[in-house]
């Protein structure tokens, strides 16, 4: 085992240290003085961490993986020890999926930083923006490299906090403030489940670890996913309501993941989060943070697979979310919202891919990570492209664009590539990962989910082509759109790089790298039937969109919308989910639960708090009245104290 580790692996802590120190330096010292410089330094730092992540990936790959990839923790230190087997560790875990995520996060983050230098040019909070962006990058890296669930939880909250700050970046805009609050509250609510799950796992993990002895740590992923430990977990038996304890704990953990990855019914925050600056949407709300939930399930996959039932829940919620969001995406007019619903739908895809995987059919695990990988590039590209368009047209509304094909050639070309990639057309990246997910669903016998997946593939192709045609084809529909100019080169470079990745990422021999268990028997390659079905769905979707929207006008689609009547309105209003939440929270929870609690809080709890504050002050004043300033008094207290001490020693002697 004792390989000589390379420089990057030996110094794995740098992956966290670089963005963290750059966050500190930029935020504390550079931002107040030179915002411009803050942006440049922040960008350079993230590029440096990207370089470091690549070096680390290369070194890890060179360790070889013929008999499965090893999981190593090259750097870890104990911060606080509660007791044996229960300590807080901070470290870096290196295994295929963490390396994958490190590469994805640093790549997309550095491109988004670069893009933002152009996009945010001249904004008032330029320095503040880059400070948060750096904090986010650090937190996200701490999340993906967490070797134990406690560090992951801390980083999880940190990404939530930086996402909150960035959604509310335009804090003078009420809608942005609302959206940031909504995102924070919904995900925080979900994190409550995560925390409970962590506590359950930690509690029983501690018992198992202390039985086992040795140096086992209750929170370590390596410990939790150890086959023996998992066996003991599943032998724990029923917890609440007859649900086995392990399943219960995992469902609670999954609740946190579902919140972050915006799974139905916790999806409501993500579309609103588009109030943040567009590059933020690309980085946080498309490529990285929202896949944290998928990553969490993948990280704990052996446990989920042991439980079985928990994985089934993941599969069905994922599949439902992917259809549900895809249907809504077909009717939205705000380009970023369409992309947001598309993200929801694709996250559902990744989730159900994990859900259909099992110890016998682990292909879904590979497929899910593969899709995470390709999706990060083409979805970031779509968002950055949309940002470029918005930058030029000064509107998010697709019906105010049109005819941008000639005016913004680079943006147009890259957006088209991304659209084809997400639609799953060969040879673009989405084709390969989507194909693998469908194959995994069919191969593990989930025919229903396979059918849904195929449907979603068609819908995805349709709504993406819809915004593509309406935005870029036809005639300019507004004054701004007709005077649109191509964005500056600093924004175009990231677009081109991401476009290249969106084409090339599919050809990575991914199954060799990320797989579950030893070299698996399931053939990795293209199943012609599934590939044909998927491509057919994509082509149908694009063709249908071409029929309706090729001139960039709403006439033909309006006919269909009117024919659908109430159904269309239902979808267009997102199935009235926001209204449902508002009704439940305002009319039921606020009135029947919160109001009495508020009364109790105001009169009883606050009273108690005020009483304790008041008594503390009175006690404090009383104590300081003893402080008369007279040295005689002090002397008497001193001697009296000595006598008191004598008596207490005498009376209390053991």
């Amino acid at each position: 085992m004792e390989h000589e580790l390379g420089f990057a692996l030996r110094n794995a802590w740098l992956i966290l240290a670089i963005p963290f120190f750059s966050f500190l330096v930029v935020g504390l010292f550079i931002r107040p003085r030179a915002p411009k410089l803050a942006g440049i330094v922040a960008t350079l730092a993230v590029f440096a961490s990207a370089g470091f992540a690549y070096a680390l990936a290369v070194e890890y790959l060179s360790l070889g993986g013929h008999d499965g990839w090893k999981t190593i923790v090259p750097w870890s230190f104990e911060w606080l020890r509660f007791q044996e087997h229960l300590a807080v560790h901070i470290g870096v875990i290196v295994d295929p999926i963490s390396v994958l995520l490190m590469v994805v996060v640093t790549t997309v983050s550095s491109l988004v930083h670069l893009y933002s230098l152009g996009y945010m040019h001249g904004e008032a909070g330029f320095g503040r923006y880059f400070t948060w962006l750096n904090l986010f990058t650090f937190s996200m890296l701490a999340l993906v490299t967490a070797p134990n669930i406690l560090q992951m939880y801390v980083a999880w909250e940190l990404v939530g906090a930086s996402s909150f700050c960035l959604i509310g970046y335009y804090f003078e805009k009420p809608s942005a403030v609302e959206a940031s609050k909504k995102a924070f509250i919904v995900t925080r609510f979900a994190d409550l489940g995560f925390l409970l799950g962590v506590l359950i796992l930690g509690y029983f993990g501690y018992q198992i670890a202390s039985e086992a002895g040795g140096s086992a740590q209750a929170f370590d992923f390596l410990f939790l996913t150890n086959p023996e430990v998992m066996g003991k977990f599943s032998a724990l038996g029923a917890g609440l309501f007859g649900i086995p304890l392990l399943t219960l704990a995992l469902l609670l953990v999954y609740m946190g993941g579902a919140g972050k990855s915006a799974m139905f019914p916790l999806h409501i925050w993500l579309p609103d989060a588009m109030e943040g600056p567009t590059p933020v949407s690309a980085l946080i709300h498309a490529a990285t943070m929202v896949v944290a939930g998928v990553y969490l399930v993948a990280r704990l996959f052996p446990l989920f697979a042991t439980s079985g039932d928990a994985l089934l829940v993941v599969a069905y919620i994922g599949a439902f979310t992917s259809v549900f969001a895809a249907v809504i995406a077909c009717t939205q007019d705000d380009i970023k919202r369409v992309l947001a619903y598309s993200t929801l739908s694709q996250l559902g895809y990744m989730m159900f891919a994990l859900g259909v995987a099992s110890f016998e059919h682990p292909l879904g695990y590979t497929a899910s990570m593969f899709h995470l990988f390709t999706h990060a590039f083409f979805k970031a590209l779509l968002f950055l492209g949309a940002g470029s368009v918005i930058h030029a047209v000064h509107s998010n509304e697709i019906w105010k664009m049109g005819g941008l094909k000639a005016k913004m050639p680079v943006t147009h070309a890259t957006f088209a590539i991304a659209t084809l990639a997400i639609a799953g057309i060969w040879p673009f990246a989405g084709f390969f990962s989507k194909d693998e997910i469908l194959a995994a669903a069919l191969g593990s016998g989930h025919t229903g989910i396979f059918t849904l997946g195929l449907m979603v593939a068609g819908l995805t192709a349709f709504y993406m082509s819809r915004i593509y045609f309406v935005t870029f084809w036809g005639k300019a529909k507004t004054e701004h759109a007709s005077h649109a100019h191509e964005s500056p080169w600093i924004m175009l470079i990231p677009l081109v790089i991401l476009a290249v990745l969106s084409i090339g990422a599919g050809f990575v021999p991914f199954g060799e790298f990320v797989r579950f268990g030893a070299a698996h028997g399931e053939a990795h390659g293209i199943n012609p039937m599934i590939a044909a079905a998927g491509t057919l769905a994509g082509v149908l979707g694009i063709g249908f969109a071409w029929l309706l929207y090729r001139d960039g006008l709403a006439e033909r689609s309006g006919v269909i919308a009117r024919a659908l009547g109430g159904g269309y309105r239902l979808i267009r209003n997102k199935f009235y989910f926001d209204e449902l939440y508002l009704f439940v929270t305002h009319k039921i929870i606020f009135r029947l639960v919160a109001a009495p609690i508020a009364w109790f809080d105001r009169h009883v709890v606050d009273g108690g708090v005020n009483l304790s504050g008041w008594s503390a002050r009175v006690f404090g004043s009383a104590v300081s009245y003893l402080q008369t300033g007279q040295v005689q008094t002090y002397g008497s207290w001193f001697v009296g104290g000595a006598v008191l001490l004598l008596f207490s020693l005498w009376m209390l002697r053991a």
Partner: protein
Amino acid sequence: MLMLPELIVIGTAFLLLTLDLIWSDRQRPALALVGLSGVGAAIAATLTLMPQSGELFGGRFAVDAVAWWFKLLFLIAGGLTIALSMDMLDGRIGAGGTQLGSRGEYYVVMLFNLAGMMYMASARDLVSLYVSLELATIPLFVLAAWKRDAQSTEAGLKYVILGALASALFLYGMGILYGLSGEMRLEAMGKAMQAGPAFWLGVAMLAAGVGFKLTLVPFHMWAAEVYQGAPAPVTAYLSVASKGAGLALMFHVFYRVLGPLAGHWDLALAIFASLTMTVGNFAAIVQKNIKRFMAFSAISQAGYLLLGFLGKPGDGVPAMLFYLLVYIVTNLAVFGVIIWYSNHTGRERIEDYRGLSRTNPLVALAMMIALFGLAGIPPLSGFVGKFFLFSIAAKAGFHWLVALAAVNSTVSLYYYLRVVRQMYIEPAEAGDSALRVTPAMTGALAVTVLASVILGVIPYFYETVSAQTAGWLQGTLW
């Protein structure tokens, strides 16, 4: 060789006396640098000698791991205090009247005091203990009265009177215990005694003397006025170094003199610890003057420190030493800001700090980090230090005490936040502009704040203390 750090400190003090005589007024600001280099050399000597142990003078002076650590801590506190005093003694800064003259003597007196503390950490019999204790106390009376205005003089006088009282009691207690045991050597005393009424009387008197140095309730009364009246750097020094000396004294009394009989103390200790932290905390709530406020804060911190005596020495000793280190750097960071602010404005009320985050954001940030450290917010070192102390009390079965200590930490957060509120939420007064920060002050603040963060984040320091002191006293007493 083993006495080298002490000899360096004393040598530096005499060198300063001489230089002060021959240097002109223009050259005298460099005296501080000479003093600092002396302390630096003593720190270097301590670090090189550190793992060794041995005795001199027939066992009257001995060094072991714990004594080295105490010396190191005193030297750190002394060095930082010299750095923090430079501005005030320089005379070129400040809103008139705050700067002091006679800088040469100031450093000399401080260095003698420092040497006294270091000797005390190594004292092993009654005579050397008492002599070094006096050397570690009497110069402080002088320093407290250094400003020579009404308040400072009052502080010095009160300190002298109560200090004499404490010293008398301590000496009396020593006499009684000597009479009972017939031993001068600290370690032999406990073994030669039975627990009887006279024994308890002697111990109570010793403890009163220790309580004076450590500011334990009800022996804390002097602290409020002395801290408020003394010049700010002296207050800073009193709050960290003198308290450290109190802890060293307590180590002698508790682990050596009482030795095998120390177990009888647990409940009484717990009660005095809870009294100290509670009274200190609640009195701090209503204070208006920031130095007086820090006096009560320091009293409550001494209460937390006492928790370490409840467990086995193997756990308690490193936890207390570590907390003392954390407390020294964190408290000096707070005092650094206080000294800086009163040098420039001459103001010392808590409200005077309003709007500091607008005018001097980095100084305000340093102050906030340090205050949060004192309150024990993770991941700052104050949290980690308290965590170890509390867990010792919990392991010893004093759960009520841990609960009380946790409540006290919460209360303390309230009053530390009062200062933060003034700095960050209250607007600056019109016309307030950024105040200059001298290089010496910048350096001292940066070192203390960074240390108070790093000590919490990186466990290396605690592990070193723990590893070096783990075998302490083993085989001799316990």
